[in-house]
Structures are given as C-alpha cells and as structure tokens.
C-alpha cells in the first residue's frame, strides 16, 4: 500500500539572518503517512518541527526533495491538508459557526449545507451551544476547539497540528489531549501533531518521531499504542503513570538531553 502523504529527502535551508551563512532547518527528511495514523513530532525549540509542518502544508517550498500526496507532488496549501495553529488564527469578525463554516463558504457551499456540516463538527468538539458566540469571548481551550472544528469542516485527508495545545494551561491541556484523540478516532483522519511535551507525545502518538536541531533531522522513531490503551481503559492518568510509559518517557528525555549536551 502506498502512503497517503510522503516526504522524500526533504531539506530546507534558510539564509542566516546575519552574515552570509545559512541554517539547515531540515536535512533529508523521509516520512510516510499511512491512513489513520497519529504521528507526533517531538523536539526542543528550533529543531525544525514547525518548518516541517509548514513544508507539508505547502506554505514553504522545500529547498530540495519532494512532498507527494497520493504520489503527486504538492505545489502549495490546499483543502486536503487542514491546519490547526498554536495561536488559534480564527477570524474575530466571524462568530463560532461562521468561523467553522468558513472553508465551505469559500467553496460556494450554500448557507444551509455548510452550517449543517459545521454544526456536526462543533458537536464533535463539544461547542455546538456556543455557535453564535463571538470568538473573543471564548477561553483559549474553546478557541482551539473551534480551530479544530474549522479544520475538519473542509474534510481534509490529513490534519496538521502545530503545537495546538502549547498555549493552554495544564488542566485544559490534558482534557484537550483526550478530546483530540476522540476526534481523531471518530474522524479517522491522519494527524501530524507537533509538541514539545514528551508526555503529550507519548500519550497521543501511534508513531512518534524525535527530532534534533541544527540541522533539523529525525533521530528516533517509535511505534506506540498508549492511545489505543487509553481508548480501552478510558483513564488518561493511569496510562501516563504506567511503568512502561515512564520508562519510554525517561528514555526519550535522555535522548533529547544527550543531543543537547553533544553540542
């Protein structure tokens, strides 16, 4: 079976801000995304995670290599790849429903049809009773849920999530992790999720890639099933305090710290 989305030897080199040098943000990244995968990229700041996401979304053209969606190269952003941002990036001049239905409106879908689809996705993130609220009256967690519903509404094949929970408080964050997993399970999208929380990465991923900076590259990959165990048990804290979980968590932390000490 060929991958839905695959990255072939993707490199990204930026000219340095000062001097004539350059910074290699990504070096020969190879990644394949299979259906229903939840891939998490983990790494310290500056390891190229966000660059990787921007390249996959089509916001940036890689310096070399190719990104193939169903074997054809992507040339720019498109509806097949929905994006959820760290800062919600919603439109404050639209209410919750209008924000969620925005993508369908652009496609010329009639108000009734697009609102029905938006409503479905607002239900999925538990916000349908807030449909008429202005964005700026919502809490940070609710704004991120609208961002997720909005990205789902155009029915992309893959959801790209750029540290979507990074700006939330610790309690909201844990709840949102579970919500994102539920949404993923029900929508059956491929998810590419960026975080710098090891616990979050381990808990959510079916596949975890650990990245290291300068040059940004993948240094480790894990296949994980903690999210499946969560679906069976329904108790997130229990999974996160499991000895297996803690063992891998410490292993990954030592990899990341080890990388930093090497420099």
């Amino acid at each position, binding site marked *: 079976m060929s991958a839905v989305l695959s990255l072939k030897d993707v490199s990204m080199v930026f000219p340095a801000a000062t001097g004539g040098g350059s910074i290699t943000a990504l070096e020969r990244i190879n990644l394949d995304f299979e259906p229903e995968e939840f891939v998490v990229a983990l790494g310290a700041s500056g390891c190229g995670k966000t660059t990787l996401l921007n390249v996959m*979304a*089509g*916001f940036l053209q890689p310096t070399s290599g190719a990104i193939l969606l169903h074997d054809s190269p992507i040339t*720019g*952003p*498109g*509806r097949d*790849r*929905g*994006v959820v*941002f760290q*800062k919600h*990036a*919603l*439109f*404050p*001049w639209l209410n919750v429903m209008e924000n969620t239905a*925005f*993508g369908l409106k*652009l*496609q010329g879908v009639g108000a009734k049809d697009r609102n029905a689809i938006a409503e479905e996705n607002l239900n999925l993130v538990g916000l349908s009773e807030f449909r008429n609220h*202005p*964005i*700026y009256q919502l809490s940070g967690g609710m704004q991120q849920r609208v961002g997720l519903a*909005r*990205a789902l509404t*155009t029915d*992309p094949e893959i959801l*790209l999530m750029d540290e979507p929970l990074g700006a939330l408080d610790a309690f909201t964050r844990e709840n949102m992790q579970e919500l994102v997993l539920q949404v993923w399970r029900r929508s059956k999208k491929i998810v590419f999720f960026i975080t710098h929380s090891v616990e979050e990465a381990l808990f959510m991923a079916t596949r975890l890639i650990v990245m290291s900076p300068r040059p940004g590259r993948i240094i480790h990959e894990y296949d994980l099933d903690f999210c499946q165990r969560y679906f069976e048990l329904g108790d997130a804290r229990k999974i996160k305090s499991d000895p297996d979980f803690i063992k891998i968590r410490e292993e990954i932390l030592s990899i990341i710290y080890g990388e930093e000490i090497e420099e």
Partner: protein
Amino acid sequence: MALLKIFGNNQETKDPYGAPGTGKSTLISLVTIAVILGAWWLVTELELIRALFLPSPGLVFSKFLKISCYDHYKESFLVFLGLRAEVVAECVGFSENALHQHILWSLYRVFSAFFLAVVTAIPIGVAMGMNRIARGVFDPPIEFYRPIPPLAYLPLTIIWFGIGDFAKIFLIYLACFAPLAISARAGVKSCSIEQIHAAYSMGASRNQVIWHVVLKAALPEILTGLRISIAFGWTTLVAAEMVAAKAGIGVMVLNAARFLATDIVFLGIVVIGLTAFIFDGLMRQLERLLVPWRGKG
C-alpha cells in the same frame, strides 16, 4: 513631585499598584466644561475684558438666534399652524446667509472631499500595503506633501483650479487623503500570517484571502483612519473658504473677523467644533457596531 502626586495618583480607583491613569473621567470632563463656561460668563459679567475681545456667552447666544433667523422661522411656523397672521421678523443672517446655509455649504465641501478621499485613499492605501510597486509609487508623494500645511499650497490650488468650489474641495481632499491612505496601508498589516495560512489551507484563492481576511482585518484601522481624516478635513475648512467663498462657516468667521464681530467669530468656532465632535461621536458608535472585536484577542 507635587505634580507627579496629582497626576500619578491612582488612589480613587482603589488600585494603587495598577496601571496609571485608569478610572472614569466623564464627570471630571463635565466639571471642566462647566468651569470654562462659568469663567467665561464671570469674566464678561464683571466686564474685566471688553466685549470686543471676549463677548459674553449671552451675546454669542443672542447672535446665534439672530443669524440662524430664529424669530423668522418661529413666526413662519406659527403662520403655518394658523396661529399667526403674518411673518414680521426678517431673516437677516450674516454675509447674506442664515447660519444653517453656512453650515450646509461647509458640510457639502467637507463631506464631498471626505467622500472623494474615502473612494481613493482606501484603495490606494490597501494597494500600498499589499503591493511593493504601489508602495514604491505612492510613498514619496504622500510622505512629501503630508506635513506641508494646506495654507502653503492653497495658492497653487487656486492657480490650478480657479476660485470655484472644486479648488476648495480639493484642498480639503488633500488634507483628508494622507491620513486615510496611511491608516489603510497599516491596516492591511493587521492580520497575522497564521490567519492567512489558515485561509489558504481551507482552499482560499489569493483574491479570497484579500477580501475575506486581509480587508476584514484592516477594518478597525481603516475606521480609525476615517476619524482622523475627517478631523483633518475640518481643520482645513477655514483655509479652503478663505478665497472667494460666498457661504460657509469658514467664510462667516473670516468676514466676522474683518468687521471685528467677535461674537460671530466665537459662534463659528463653536459650530465647527460641535459639528466635528458630533460626527466623531457617530463614528465611534459605528466602530462599536462594525468592529466589536477591536482590541480583543
């Protein structure tokens, strides 16, 4: 130090360690207005200053009734109702026009200029914000003429466009144009790159991004620009009406000054101030209505 104590004092907000300058100021403003009016009345009542230099509030008000033809219109209204046989009071006005005619002429000039500025400066400002060629073309002329006082290029507008209304409107137009174009240009930068990216990844075309994201996000700044722009229009009004205008609040003030009719000069100033103030209030309401999200996350 004493001054710092007065102006840096936050005690009345019950938040001594909060940001300085918070709390309501409406009542204080009303008191200030009352004090100014009271001092004006007292000084003239005690005849400390001659009426030629400072006419009393009563005098200005009676001039207001006179040149707005209050008696004439009151009698006309009574005749209309059948409560009076004929109109005796004449409509004198000032400079051959009643007050409302002066006001209407000035409103016509300011708002024509404002309208022209809106339909030209907003598109040009938006283009400057979004296109480097437009920015390169329009930046030097706008930045060059912007700080020049309108009085300096008033003679030029007369040489070019004569002494008709177009020259007057053009002068006010120039005053309105620059601040509006600059606000629109700045407004275009208001949306975040994430908002633009979000729209693209939902399948937006470039035109859709401009229309549904960039321009919507620019709206708060553009509305602020409108307020600044119309205020510049009012400040240029008197200069614009200096040459060969028959009616208008600016002409009224200038003619009154020539005859040392200080009361009418006062009246004209108050009328311009109040008109601009009322319009600004309406614009604020419009802002509240159109961009309720302004300044909120």
